[in-house]
């Protein structure tokens, strides 16, 4: 093999800048020429993908090492904030995931959004998203990550609300933005805390500080734990972890390619990436790591249980994503960075593929309601095969990719003494196999139940009649391409290559007991789904009626949306009401109250009202008196 030179750092930077070029060109040049906008995006992201491959190749020649380049951005006193690139094994894997999935999704979108009036806008947003996501991955310090992190959030907002005529889409966009910002608040606090204590946000410097006992003293007294939990809270928001997971199912209102790229493969994985990237901090803060494990376990379980009863194709996948992200977090939390990232890597491909299957099924039936599908397997063999591969992979059946990474996570949990997590993960595995095959069986087997007439949606490219058909090549080919890693990517860590690449010790133990248990559990899940929905030995309705409370509880998503809705409504209305009162009674009231006080005492000043210039003057003087009083009380 001819030796390929190592990639220069400028080329790595180009991976990030290429999609930005496409964004600018679309915005200013080709917005009226949608076709060109689409091809432009595909070309630039394709180039980014090739450069990512080159980066990956370079990194394989230097395991455990890293590339980097910096320039000073802001110098404040002696400290400086640097903009820099940091490339190691983790980065190059993420680069590959982001660019490859993004590339395939863009190709798919050219067909899926064919004829949509917002076609150019869609690709502009997608370019911006890809660039921002690459920024998160390439950044060498927390501040840059935070900047791109927020940009990714904005893109997600814009893309969920892409069909802003749909009120649900607009509401979902807002919900996603607001909910994730709760997490970001913690993230920002953590950044401020770290910076104020250590004076740096650079990963390498931070790691040096926490790794040396003398320097780590600046973060003593539990501060490091709080910082790590703050970082994790950002990840909780982005990666839809319990209890901030509520935005992800609603985000399915966005176009399906968006769901595949952002809400399955990349953005939601950014939280996992963030925790993995700052893992040395977590290693020194065992309580924070424990929190990660607990939240991950809860999320995995809760997500999977809600997925059991949904009827919407994409929502089942969304809950499945939540559950799988929880599993990755659990993997990180129990100490298995390699296992968590490995699962992220595998999951990105098969989950993106399944979302594209959902889009493909919708393309044929104009609905996402699986009760209205049925029998699609006959008409859409490619989509059906892809779904089967995805289902087997996510359920953890040998030799599909999910088998390998799930086994590693379970093995790590068991090996590190997290027995409760292990048991919950097994239950999750059972539920995962069940809902995934319930989805596949109901949608693809049996008789076709009519779908829905094309209406409501804004895309007009599909024929209005009801002859079911496989999707066009631009949609089918990405499915086929994504199916390949879903089958084979699991073998990447067979010899510990993946682990060594990440700079970890590449010892791979096959946990035979775990493999046996988890495979049995998964097969049981598939069997149960078969009995319920294909053989129909157990009537579904009876079960639902026997346990109405559980069924309702799950169907209503643990009532969490209602709870949050209630809280937000009360809180929001309360605040509005308070502000209203503040306006009416405090601002005026201060003016009025003081006025009437004065009127009562001396009958001097007439009644004042807001909007009244004299009331304002009174506030000025009352303020002055208050300040003087403050100085008298607290001393000069």
């Amino acid at each position, binding site marked *: 093999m001819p030796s390929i030179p190592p990639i220069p750092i400028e080329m790595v930077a180009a991976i990030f800048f290429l999609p930005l070029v496409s964004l600018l060109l679309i915005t200013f040049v080709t917005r009226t020429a949608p076709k060109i906008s689409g091809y432009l995006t595909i070309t630039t992201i394709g180039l980014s993908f090739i450069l990512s491959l080159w980066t990956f190749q370079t990194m394989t020649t230097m395991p455990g090492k890293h590339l980097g380049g910096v320039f000073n951005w802001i*110098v*404040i006193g002696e400290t400086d904030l640097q903009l820099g690139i940091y490339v190691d094994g983790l980065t190059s894997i993420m680069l590959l995931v982001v660019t490859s999935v993004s590339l395939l999704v863009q190709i798919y979108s050219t067909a899926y959004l064919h004829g949509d009036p917002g076609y150019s806008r869609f690709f502009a947003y997608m370019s911006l998203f890809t660039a921002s996501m690459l920024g998160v991955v390439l950044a060498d310090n927390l501040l840059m990550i935070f900047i791109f992190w927020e940009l990714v959030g904005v893109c997600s907002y814009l893309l969920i609300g892409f069909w802003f005529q749909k009120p649900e889409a607009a509401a979902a966009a807002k919900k996603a933005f607001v909910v994730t910002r709760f997490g970001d*608040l913690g993230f920002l606090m953590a950044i401020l805390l770290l910076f104020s204590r250590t004076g740096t946000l650079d990963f390498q410097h931070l790691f040096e500080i926490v790794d040396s006992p003398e320097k780590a003293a600046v973060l003593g007294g539990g501060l490091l734990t709080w910082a790590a939990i703050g970082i994790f809270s950002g990840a909780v928001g982005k990666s839809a972890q319990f209890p901030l997971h509520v935005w992800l199912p609603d985000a399915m209102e966005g176009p399906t390619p968006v769901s595949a790229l952002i809400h399955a493969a990349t953005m939601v994985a950014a939280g996992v990436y963030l925790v993995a990237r700052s893992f040395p901090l977590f290693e020194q803060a065992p309580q924070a790591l424990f929190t990660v494990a607990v939240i991950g376990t809860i999320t995995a379980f809760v997500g999977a249980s809600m997925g059991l009863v949904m009827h919407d194709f994409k929502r089942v996948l969304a809950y499945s994503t939540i559950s799988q992200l929880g599993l990755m977090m659990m993997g990180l939390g129990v100490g298995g960075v390699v296992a968590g990232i490995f699962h992220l890597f595998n999951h990105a491909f098969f989950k993106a593929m399944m979302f594209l299957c959902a889009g493909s099924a919708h393309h044929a039936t104009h609905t996402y309601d699986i009760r209205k599908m049925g029998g699609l397997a006959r008409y859409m063999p490619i989509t059906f095969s892809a779904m089967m591969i995805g289902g087997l992979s996510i359920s953890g059946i040998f030799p599909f990719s999910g088998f390998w990474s799930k086994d590693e996570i379970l093995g790590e949990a068991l090996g590190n003494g997290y027995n409760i997590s292990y048991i919950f993960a097994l239950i999750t595995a059972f539920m995962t196999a069940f809902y995934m095959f319930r989805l596949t069986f109901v949608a693809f087997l049996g008789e076709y139940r009519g779908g829905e007439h094309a209406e409501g949606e804004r895309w007009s490219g599909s024929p209005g009649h009801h002859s079911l058909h496989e999707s066009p090549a631009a949609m089918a080919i990405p499915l086929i391409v994504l199916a390949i890693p879903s089958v084979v990517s699991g073998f990447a860590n067979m010899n510990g290559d993946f682990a060594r690449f990440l700079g970890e010790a590449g010892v791979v133990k096959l946990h035979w007991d775990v493999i046996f248990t988890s495979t049995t559990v998964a097969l049981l899940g598939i069997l149960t789904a078969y009995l319920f929905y294909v053989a129909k030995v157990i009537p579904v309705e009876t079960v639902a009626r026997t346990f109405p409370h559980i069924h309702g509880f799950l169907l209503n998503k643990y009532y969490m949306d209602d709870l949050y809705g209630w809280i937000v409504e009360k809180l929001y209305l309360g605040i509005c009401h308070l502000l209203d009162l503040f*306006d009416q009674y405090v601002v005026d009231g201060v003016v009025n109250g003081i006025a009437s006080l004065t009127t009562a005492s001396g009958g001097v000043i007439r009644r004042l009202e807001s909007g009244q210039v004299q009331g304002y003057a009174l506030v000025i003087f009352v303020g002055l008196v208050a300040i003087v009083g403050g100085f008298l009380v607290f001393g*000069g």
Partner: protein
Amino acid sequence: MNLYLLGPELSLIGLAFLVILVDLATHNKNVVAALAGIGLVVPAAWAVSLWGQTASSFYGALVVDSYSIFFKLLFIAAAALVILMSVQYSKRFAPYQGEYYAVILLATAGMMFMASTQELISIYISLELASISLYVLASFLKDAKSSEAGIKYLLLGAVSSAVLLYGMALLYGATGSTKLNEIAQAIQESMQRDQGAVLPAIVLGAIFMAGGFGFKIAAVPFQMWAPDVYEGAPTPITGFLTGASKAAGFAVILRVFFVALGNQAPLPVDWPALFAVLSALTMTVGNLSAIPQANIKRMLAYSSIAHAGFILVGVAAFSSQGVGGVAYYLLGYMFTSMGAFAAIVAISERLGSDQIADYSGLARRAPLLALILAICLISLIGLPPTVGFVAKIYVFWAALQQGLLWLVLFGVLNSVISAYYYLRVVKAMYLGAPASEEPLPVSRTLVVALAVAVIAVLAIGIFPQPWLDFGTGAAIVLIP
């Protein structure tokens, strides 16, 4: 007496009179606007040529240093933007356009004086030159709302001037001088003499002066005028008030408090704490009141109050980083706010409305305009990659260094709250349904103003270092 040092201001005043003369001679008002706009090159170039000098004149009343030149250039840039915004808008008061531009230039001259005086009498006079010009400008539309804005601004402005003067009188009486450095020295000596005791007149004087200047920057509780005046004034003038007049107020506050009351070993008056409290109050009241607003000008008025609170964080930090942060923040805020108001001018010119509800679906009808407004609003929230982000980080960081953690927490929380009402506008523009599909054209001069503002917002935000150096260079004058 070195008149050369006064060049920027004098040439600006000369330009104002020239504008009035040309206005008499020609009927083509665009010529007048062009003269006013292009003429700004002279004072700007003059100010740049003075860069690096430190000299004083008029018996120490006037000083030219990097600090004053920083602000002078800021005011000239603001004036240029206002003139660009006004070319189309000023057709509303057709016969008086020449006077309008002349008064803008005079107000700018007043602000430039404010930045470079270090003596109480001249501070007062330059402040009044700026203020009286602004009273006139605020009521320039001569309709009921604009006149009401004018009278409210004038009455409250005069009252707060009285408060300011009372403070100055007390300070003068307690120290026997009106020059800031002599005041500082006198206080220092009297404190050494009396074992650290401070005359009550100095404390009271400092508080009254804080009140008088607090009015200019619209800090709580001296902010009551701002929403009404901002709503009623002609929109370009509203931009000018938020961008330039506020900066002028801060320029004076920093100079007076740092030079006269900040050079003693234990501070005679704990004004950093006073400003810290005012800062927390100001941002909270401003943000909370902005939330229920339906009129975008009024919403931005409350937002501008909130931003005064954020900038005060840098003042309260009482350090050279703090001052640098304030200078940088003011520069960024000027461009951001002027950009937002330029967009509002462009939009309301076509829609005839300032209601946020009418901005629905604007992204479809005027995509670039909506994008620019969105970028400005994002900068106001303080999100990257805009100047608002760096500015907030910088002042918060300066405050953290001085141990003002509670204030920074306040600020961060407030930033989060503020996102809500800014994003409401973005949401209306991008996710709302348009009332009609008819595109909104924008006049050419406005496009220039919008482009300059938005490029500045992004460029200063993405490449902040030279601008931060610029700001810190200015700060060094106050804190060596």
